[in-house]
Structures are given as C-alpha cells and as structure tokens.
C-alpha cells in the first residue's frame, strides 16, 4: 500500500514538473496524454492498479488517485483556455514619453481675483450692479456729498472730458444710480474700472479696478459693517487674519472707517518689510455708514433707513495677495505672467 501511495506522489510531482514547461497547446496535449491517455496514461495505470489492492485499502487510495486525476483535468482545462486566446503582438511602447497636452487659455489675474471677491459677497446675498465709466460730476461727486470746490475732491484726482463730464474716479456713483431706481432693502456690490489722473508707477495707475459694496435697510448699523467686512476678509485671506477698523474720512460716509489687515508678509512690524514698510498693517478697504445727506439726495429717509458702504481696490489687494510688487504688470499683459494664473 505504501508503494502505491509513493507512486501517486511521484506521479503528482512528475505532472507539476511537466506542466510548468508547457507554453503552447501542443505541449499541453502531450502532457495530458502522458497522464490521462486511456492506453498509456500514468493516472489510468494507477486506477487500473486499484483492483489489486485489498478491499479495505481501496477507498482511501481510490480517493487519492481520484483527487490527482481531478487536479490534472482541471489544470489542463484551465491552461487550454489561457493558451487558446490569440496573443496579439504588442509593439513596444515607450511609456515614458510625455502625455498629451491640451493648450488652455488663462484668465486675466485681475478678473480672476475680482471673481473670487464677488463669490464671497454672493454667498452673503449680495447682488451685482454695474454703471457707466464715463460719468457726470453730479454722480461722481455732488450726489456723494462732495461740495463743489471742496478740497476733498483733491483726493480723487480726476480725468475730465468736459467741465461736467468725467471718467469715474470710483465705483461709488453706481450707489446713487441704484438708489435712485430702487428702494431699500438694497444689498449690492459694484465691480468695475475706475480712473484717476495718476502717472503710472509701481503703486499707481490711471486705471484700476474697484469693488464697491452698499447695504441699505431698516436697522443697519456699524456693527453690521464690521461683521460683513470681517467675514469677507477672512474668506478672502484666511481665518486668522488680523483686522483693524480705524476712523477715517469720506464725504459720502459718516462715520467713516478704513480697514487694515495685519501684514502677512512680515507678520507685523518688521521695519524693512517692503510690503507694509514696518507699519505691520496694510490698508485694504474704505468704508462707513452711508452719509444721511447721500440718502436724502436719492429720496431715502435717513430717519427710517440706514446703510453702510465700502470699497476696495482690486489691483492693490491682488498685489498684496499674490506678492506682486509692481501694479503695472497687470496691464503689460505679458503672457509669461498671465499664463501662471491658469493654475490658480
């Protein structure tokens, strides 16, 4: 009995050795025949030998032979299937060759940044309003409570078309145009180009972008102005940014404020910092409660309604956000600069 068991084991080893060398259907057939052929197969011979065993030994040895036969049959079928699939000859591919590139244009950085700003205000329920770039003195100054011949006008160096017609120096005239047409509640932002009589230098240009904001409703307070702008600045820069409101003056707001953020370049107060110049603060926004005279000018009762307004220079803020030292690069339109913003 031990002898036949040894033979079974030898047969199994012989099969494994033979099958390992199979690489096509022909050699597979040879191996199959060597073990399973009805006349000469080694397993067939083992089955025939079972009859010679004592009856009490037959079941155990018979099961072992049968297991081996099943194993060989299954292996052959599996290999037969694998080898029957025609092998397509692959051309050698150099997978290290570069992938395809689709050339995509870039948005202009100022427009991109303006969109980021708009998105934040749209989240807060603001609508977007627009207005003309060629304005009248009335909308640009008088209706905004700049008396004629007041030195406050000197802070807005103006490009004039005629005595009464000018290039808007800020987006604020659109406040007036909106309030003339619509009664509160008003909650808008006004993005757009503005113009100043400024010779180009790293921090001044005769044209730049502003985003103006205006909220007029019942019970609007300075606290709402602070809440809105703090939310905006944290969303635009980051949650931990330092924010400072300090008193200022604009003819069309009272009280007025300027809003500074902590210099993120030097972390504040480094004298040689080229961004904040050591002050530790960067002026970002002008703001305030809408002056009662401005509300009167558009027939909104300042005893009933109140509001706040704010404005920021998009270019200036973008310079700070992207660490760009010279504002003029925005309008040189050097594609080596602009194309970087495809990845922003």
């Amino acid at each position: 009995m031990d002898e036949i068991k040894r033979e079974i084991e030898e047969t199994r080893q012989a099969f494994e050795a033979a099958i390992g060398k199979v690489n096509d259907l022909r050699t597979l057939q040879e191996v199959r025949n060597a073990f399973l052929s009805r006349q000469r197969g080694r397993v067939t011979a083992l089955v025939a030998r079972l009859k010679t065993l004592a009856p009490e030994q037959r079941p155990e040895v018979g099961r072992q032979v049968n297991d081996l036969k099943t194993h060989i049959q299954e292996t052959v079928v599996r290999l037969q299937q694998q080898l029957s699939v025609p092998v397509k000859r692959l051309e050698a591919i150099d997978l290290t060759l570069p992938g395809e590139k689709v050339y995509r244009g870039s948005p202009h950085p100022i427009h991109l940044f303006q969109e980021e700003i708009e998105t934040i205000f749209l989240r807060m329920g603001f609508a977007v309003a627009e207005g003309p770039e060629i304005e009248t003195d009335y909308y640009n100054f008088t209706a905004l409570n700049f008396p004629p011949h007041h030195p406050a006008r000197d802070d807005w160096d103006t490009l004039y078309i005629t005595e009464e017609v000018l290039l808007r120096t800020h987006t604020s005239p659109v406040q007036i145009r909106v309030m003339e047409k619509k009664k509160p509640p008003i909650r808008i932002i006004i993005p757009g180009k503005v113009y100043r009589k400024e010779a180009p230098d790293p921090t001044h240009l005769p044209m730049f972008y502003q985003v103006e904001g205006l909220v007029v409703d019942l019970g609007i307070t300075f606290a709402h102005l602070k809440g809105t702008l703090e939310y905006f600045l944290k969303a635009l820069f980051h949650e931990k940014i330092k924010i400072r409101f300090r008193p200022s003056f604009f003819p069309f707001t009272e009280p007025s404020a300027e809003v500074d953020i902590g210099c993120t370049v030097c972390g504040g107060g480094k004298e040689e910092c080229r961004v904040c110049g050591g002050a530790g603060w960067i002026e970002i926004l002008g703001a305030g409660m809408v002056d009662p005279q401005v509300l009167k000018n558009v027939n909104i009762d300042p005893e009933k309604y109140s509001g706040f307004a704010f404005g920021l220079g998009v270019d200036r803020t973008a310079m700070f956000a992207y660490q760009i030292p010279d504002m003029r690069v925005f309008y040189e339109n050097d594609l080596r600069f602009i194309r970087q913003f495809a990845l922003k």
Partner: protein
Amino acid sequence: MKISLDWIKDYIDLDLPVPRLIEVLDSIGLLTEGWEEVDGDVVLDIETYANRPDTLGHLGVARELAAALGTRLKEPAWPLTEINESTSDLVDVQIWDEDLCPRYSGIVVKGIPVRPSPEWLSRRIRAMGLKPINNVVDVTNYVLFSTAHPIHAFDLARVEGKKIIIRRANKKEVLRSLEGDDIELSPEMLVIADEKKPIALAGVIGGENSAVSEETRDVFIESACFDPVSVRKTRKAAGIETDASYRFERGADMDFPPKAAVMAASLLSQMGGGVSRGVVDVYPNPRKTRTVMLRRHRVDALLGVQVEEPFIEKTLRDLGFQVDVQQKGIWKVRIPHFRVDIEREADMVEEIARFYGYENIPAHIPPLRTLEKAAAPSREKISKIRETLFQHGMDEVVNLSFMDPERAEVLSGDLIPVPIRNPISSKAALMRTTLIGGLLENILWNRNRGADGVHIFEIGKIFFAKEDAFREQLMLGVAMTGRVGDVHWRDRGRSADFFKLKGACEAVMRRLRYEPLAYQEASHPRFREGVVLSLHFKGERIGVLGLLKQELLKAFDLDEDVWAAELNLDLLFAKQAKAFEVEPVPKYPSVIRDVSFIADRSVPYQDIREAVERLRLPHLERFYLYDRFSGASIPRDKVSLSFRFVFRHQGRTLQAAEVDRMQEKIVSALRTRFQFHLREGGEIDK
C-alpha cells in the same frame, strides 16, 4: 501734518512711549504714516483729512489726544509788552468784500530787531521740515503750525497810506510774490492792498513789495478768515499752494483771528518788540454758534451698540463741545467754530464712535430680508464667453482704456473718439474706440519677448461721441498670430488663421445659443479688403472678423499677419437666445453616406450649404464637410469636396432605398446648381 512731541507738550502732559502714542492716535483716526527722531525730538507724520483743518496744528492734535487720554488741555498765556499807541491809530483796516473776508484782525509790533530766531524757535521750525528765515517769519510759521491758523506779517513802513484794504483785485494788476513770481491778478481774486497797490494775495501768499526784511523795524500782523472756495480758486488760478492756502481752503476757525494775532505779538515782544494797544478786529457779521440736537437712540441705532450717556457727554465736552441735556436722551450741543466739519447729528455720532473705539463695536452679519437676482444676465454670458475662449487656447488680457491720438486715424474707423481734457500723457489723450490697439500692443510686447504666437482676447468697453453724447459699448476683441502652445510629439498644434478665428467666434455664438448666425462679405477700415466677413445674427451686424490691414499693423511695428475679430456684446446681449432644450436620444440608427464631389473652386461653401438646406429633407439630420483637397488628380481650377450626410428617422429604421432617394436629391441639386461631378469611388455606403 508733522507733529513734534516736544511741541505738543506745550498743550498736554504726555509721557507715553512712542509706539503706544501711535496706537492711540491711530485709534481716533489720526494715522501715523511714519516718524523720525530730529534733534532729540520725535516728529510724527500724521495723515489728516480734508474735513479736519483743526488737526493741521499742534493744538488741534493735542485736543484730540487729551480727549482720548482723559487729560486736560493746557492753555499757555501770551503776555504782551505794550507801547502807548493804539493799533487803530497805526493802521486803517477796511473790508470791501465781506463775503470773501468775513473777519480781519491785526496788531502792530514796533521796534522789532529782525534777526535769526532763538534756538528753541529755530528747532521747532526745523522740526516742521522748514528752514528758519528770521524771527518775524519764523513766528508767523510757528503760530500756523501751533494753532493751524495762518497769519502774515507786513513791513508796516512799506504799507502806503497805512491802509489795509481787503478787496477784489483789479484787472491787469500784478503782484510779485515773496517767492519772486509775478502773479497776474483778476477780479475773482481777493487781495490785501494798501492805498495804492495789492500787497498780498489773500490767504495764499504775501507780496514782495511789503515783505519783512532785515531793514524792517515795525510789522503789522494780519490774522484773518478768508472764504475757503475763494482761496481755493485763487490758489488754483495762481498756481501756488502754500501752508496758508492749504488751511484756509479747508476752513478757518472764525473765533481765532484775534488770539493768533496776540500770540504772534507776544512772541515778538519777547524778542524786543513793543505791541500796539488793542487788536484791530473787523468782523461785520459775527457768526452764530451752530447747535445740533443729538438723540441717544440714534447713536445706538447707527453704531449697533449701547453707549453709556455719561461717556457721550464726557467725550463731547473733552472735544470742546458745549453739551446741555434738553430732555432725557436728547442733548443740545453747541459746536465750537474750530470744528468746521460738525454740522449734523451723524457727525457727532462719528465723534462718539471714534472715542468709544471702533474695536469695541461688535461685529454682526446684517439680516437678509429679501433675495434678488444676483447679477445682470450679461455677467453670466461674459463668463461663458471667457470659458469658451480659454478652451480655444486664448489668454485673457486687460488694457488701459486710452488711445494714442497719433494712432487714432489708423485705428479709429468711423467712430469719433472722446478726448480727455487733462490726460496723464499726450499718448493717452483719447478714450479707445476699439480694443484692437491694445491687443496689437500686447502682441508686439510678447513677440519681442520670445513668444512664438499670441492668441488673446479682451472684453471691455470702447467709447465714442455721438449726437452730442458720450457713449460706451461693451466689446469682445480677439487677436491671434503665430502658434501657441509647445510643439508636441503627437500634435503639431495650430497656427493662427482665419478658420481658427472663425471657429472661436462660432464657438462663442454657439455657447450663448445665438444661432443660426450668418456671414456676409464686408469691408471695414481696420481689415484687409477681401479677407474680412461681417457676422450677423437675427438680421443685425454683430461684428467683423478677418485679417488686419497692413498699414495698421505697420503702425504697431508688426510685420506678420494678425487675425482679429470684434463683436459688439451690448448689441448681442440684447438679443433673445435660443432656449435650452434637451432632445431625446435617438432610438433608431442613423445611416451615413459619404459623398465626394469635384467642384469649381469659385463656388462658396456657404452657397452649397444653403442649397442642401433649401431641400428641407426631413430625415437629413446633419451634414458636414470632412475633406477638401486639390492635387495632381484634380483639375487645376477644381477642388474635391467630401461631405458626410447623416440620415435618421425618429420613428423607425430608414430603408436603404429611402436614403438612396434623398442622396440622389442632394446630388442632383448640386449637379444642376453648381455643375458638380461625383468623384470616382466617392460613393461609399456604410
């Protein structure tokens, strides 16, 4: 405004470290822009505002600081050494124009030895960034920087007739200023004159003819108030801005002239002068003190925080306001004349907020009571245009809105440019009438810096004059030259040409669902004849596209082809776009037939297209040109055109025989109309 800490200590006791002092000043709105140490003193450079002339002197800044720190404002005494002559006997002051000069005060100092100032005074003048001149001039500057009230000293001996007349200038009068410039005067200007001639431009600058010199013995000190608008107009017309005019045009303290005169006289008498008795003070219509009512509930309503009543009262009193309780929660506040900015309740709310501290006001989000349309539909359309052009490999640019008049002729076309009266430079003296100028500059800039190709677009306004009005119009400008993107081993990329441009324009129109669009042959001042089409939608010309004229390119130093398009977006956006609808996915298969024709070169594609469309074959889903070539196998004046026709029935599978009939209709129509021939082997059923 420069503020010396030594100097300000004349008015308040101060022992704060400089950084802390700067913080306090910042918090009340006096922003320190910088500071430096000068001669052991610290001089701050403080930003001041157009509505706060009172902060243009040390006294005013000290008053603010005293209110912020809760300390008392000191009032220095100004003792005089008097002589036994009264001022009114020495000079005769007459105001001839009370509107432009509401108050004029003066005093005489006799026997003053004119010489360099004592060291303490010179130091202070230097701290203000000025050069000390002599004791008399330095004293006038000292009073100005102390109190923000400008004064002037005349050499009394040179005042003819001992008359001081405040009047409008006569035509053709000329005044030589202290600086030696001749100012041509006009009746809009107010002057100080003696019996015969102007001796100063009121509130702006003194005249050379009455200036204090080393020979001067007696001086007349002028301390007046002039109308702010008149001073502003005068100094603008004269082209001179002085420390005096800067303050007068912001508004002077109507109560202050006699005090400033006494202060100057006191200082000069300490230097050896004798002061005449009694200030001459011509003040025909004394100004009443303004009173404003302040309601407690308005303070809270505007600031969004409850401010304690005692704090409100104390703050206003510290700032020099007289505060009387009218009834509970309402105050009657008298405004001192030095606060020219305070006229209304809101102005006082700002004062309370400044000293309460903006940082102590809470931050809340305003409640949202209504929701409205977030933006004009045009903004969404602009985003879609930009997105589409980015996909077409075009970069976005933004150019300044100006145009060089030298290029206007070649650029401007039919539009009349809008000129700027005071441009920043002669090259930016017009508003642009087209986006093309900026785009060409961008191409040149980038080509000069090694770019192979430049494919760019801009969305922005152009400006023009029409029927006495100034118009602005939103435009899309596209310009392309050369090839963009790196050459890739799989793809040679595409260079700019007409069809790349046309494809981009069509993609934009399709994206906005402005279809169908049509083209016409056109001529346009900026485009080369025969290489330009106009684009039409709903019967209106929306824009042009083509090759730019050579003379235009030459004006921008470009000698390569530039393909460009200009579309009027205002016109386009006013049109109704096709509604967006989803069609069911077809259930039945299509039948595709590819047909190649030999056609005359002269037949325009658009005509072929229209001829097929005119057949109105109900089951022709679409067709398109997929190949076009000419070569040895094709006669010279002919071209091979291969079209793919896609047929489909919505309700069943088409039979080959039906498709054959439709195809035959197309072929015979084109044969008849254009004498097309089928190309051999061109008929392939798939």
